[in-house]
């Protein structure tokens, strides 16, 4: 059995990311974004970042608020019914953040190409759109060698680091999900195409627990470089089946972000507080959050 335990602190995990790194984030809109990890990046002021995601928003917006985001490539950056991502939007509209927009199947094709070691994958959904013209380094029109059919070739995403927030893992980094779960994300594909993968999880569990249900392991330890126990690591967003999103906290974030000064105040009050535990304390602590948001599964 594997003997190399990979559990590290959130601080040590984030410190592995150098400034200027290209990092893929897991999660989707209101679920399992790597928010605790992003807050730690902000505490350590690791900037000049390029972030790749599927449908993202919250984590990227915090990085934008802290002035650490150079470029974003993804399918969505918003706060769902809490509106647009305010700091991200401000940064983009000021020309401070570069964006490459791709649709879901286009961005998944890029992650998938990395998974199977290809330089690109062909797709059809971007034909005729302005997304196909944004960046010739990433998208090129091509024709099928057999049929002549038109495609857009999507360049593989080869990130320096990938960060995923998962449900549970053992100390070796076997990450598991529940059988019934929300599925509108591509965390497993993003993890599969990773080069250096860091996983934060709600809870570290004994290896024996993993072995009893190995079909629930969606990220095997062999892909994982470091695993971090971060309860409520997606807060204020949800970790489906563990806890729901914290509507009140998201509203407060969205409201604070309306101005740059408000966003900075928010970071001072909630992020620059020393640690994830101190962040949770600002919401009454872990026990209170569990009581308020836990769905008791």
């Amino acid at each position, binding site marked *: 059995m594997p003997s190399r335990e990979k559990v590290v602190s959130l601080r040590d995990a984030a410190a592995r990311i150098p400034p200027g790194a290209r990092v893929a984030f897991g999660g989707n809109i*209101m679920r399992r974004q790597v928010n605790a990890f992003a807050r730690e990046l902000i505490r350590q002021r690791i900037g000049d970042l390029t972030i790749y995601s599927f449908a993202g928003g919250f984590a990227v917006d915090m990085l934008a608020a802290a002035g650490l985001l150079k470029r974003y490539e993804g399918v*969505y950056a918003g706060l769902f019914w809490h509106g*647009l991502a305010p700091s991200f939007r401000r940064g983009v509209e000021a020309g401070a953040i570069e964006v490459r*927009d791709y649709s879901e*199947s286009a961005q998944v094709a890029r992650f998938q190409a990395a998974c199977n070691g290809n330089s690109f994958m062909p797709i*059809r959904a971007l034909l005729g759109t302005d997304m196909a013209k944004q960046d010739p380094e990433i998208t090129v029109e091509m024709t099928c060698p057999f049929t002549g059919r038109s495609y857009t070739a999507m360049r593989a995403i080869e990130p320096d680091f990938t960060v995923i927030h998962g449900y549970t893992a053992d100390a070796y980094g076997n990450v598991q999900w529940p059988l019934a779960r929300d*599925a509108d994300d591509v965390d497993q594909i993003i993890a599969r195409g990773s080069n250096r993968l860091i996983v934060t999880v709600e809870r570290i569990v004994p290896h024996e627990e993993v072995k009893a249900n190995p079909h629930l392991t969606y990220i095997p330890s062999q892909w994982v470089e470091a695993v971090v126990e971060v309860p409520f690591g997606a807060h204020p967003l949800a970790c489906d089946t563990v806890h729901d999103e914290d509507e009140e906290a998201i509203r407060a974030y969205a409201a604070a972000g309306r101005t740059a000064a408000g966003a900075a105040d928010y970071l001072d009050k909630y992020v620059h507080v020393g640690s994830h535990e101190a962040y949770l304390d600002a919401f009454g602590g872990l026990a209170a959050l569990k009581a308020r948001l836990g769905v008791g599964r």
Partner: protein
Amino acid sequence: MSAATIPEIITIALAKSFADHEVGFTGLVTGAAAMLYGTSIPLAAMMFAKLTHAPNLTILLAGWSHNPDLASLAALPDQEFDSTLLDLPCEAQTVRYPGQFSFKRGHVDFGFSSGVQLDVTGSLNSVVIGDHARPKVRLVGPILQPEHMTIFRREYVMLPHHTARVLVEKVDYVSGVGYPGGLAGRAALGIPEGGPEWVVTPECIFDFDKEAGRIRLRSIHREERRGELAGVTGFALPDLEDAPATPEPTAEELDLLRRVVDPRGLLLGRAPEH
């Protein structure tokens, strides 16, 4: 029985356009008005179709829950988005990507989408207002919109607000392709199939002269609004005078809709009548 509301009129019109055995895909759209048009009306329309002429229609709620038992919903999923949907009884749950259906293969017959701008060719924008590199307004991003407009077999564009800022001559950014250059233009882009079928607003339903690649008025919901329509639309409406009224639901249809499809008014916002 009280007269049909506009959401009810739209619901029945949509329902009648679905065929048996088709697969319909709704997203889960945010915001009250957007949710009504993007999620609730489509769900009500598909359920109505299943109860009438299309019993084998498959409802894909958020691409995730197959044929959900909507009657068991106590509230529309909003506050408890995740756990509500997770517990909703259904026939299948998509638990991984791409899951049980492959939209790239054409498994989805029709979908519903929205955007902040729609133009005369049917192209849709949900990315930016203004220039992309230095936008006036930065929006959320394209999400699944390009797929809706290409590899879904047909698309219903659902616009909760009918204004001249939404319905424009030319979108600032094409994130979903309509019929630029008509069907020939679409084919030249490599997408001979799919595309917007209808554009549904609180005022009217548009469809397309697909050969010419131009939007046209299909029907108007309220006769008394005919005179106002040109003023709230950002492109010319040459067929304004000829467009018929959107059909009024019959009493039986309304009864089925109110009593069986949406007994609590969760979808179409009507209080139960007893």
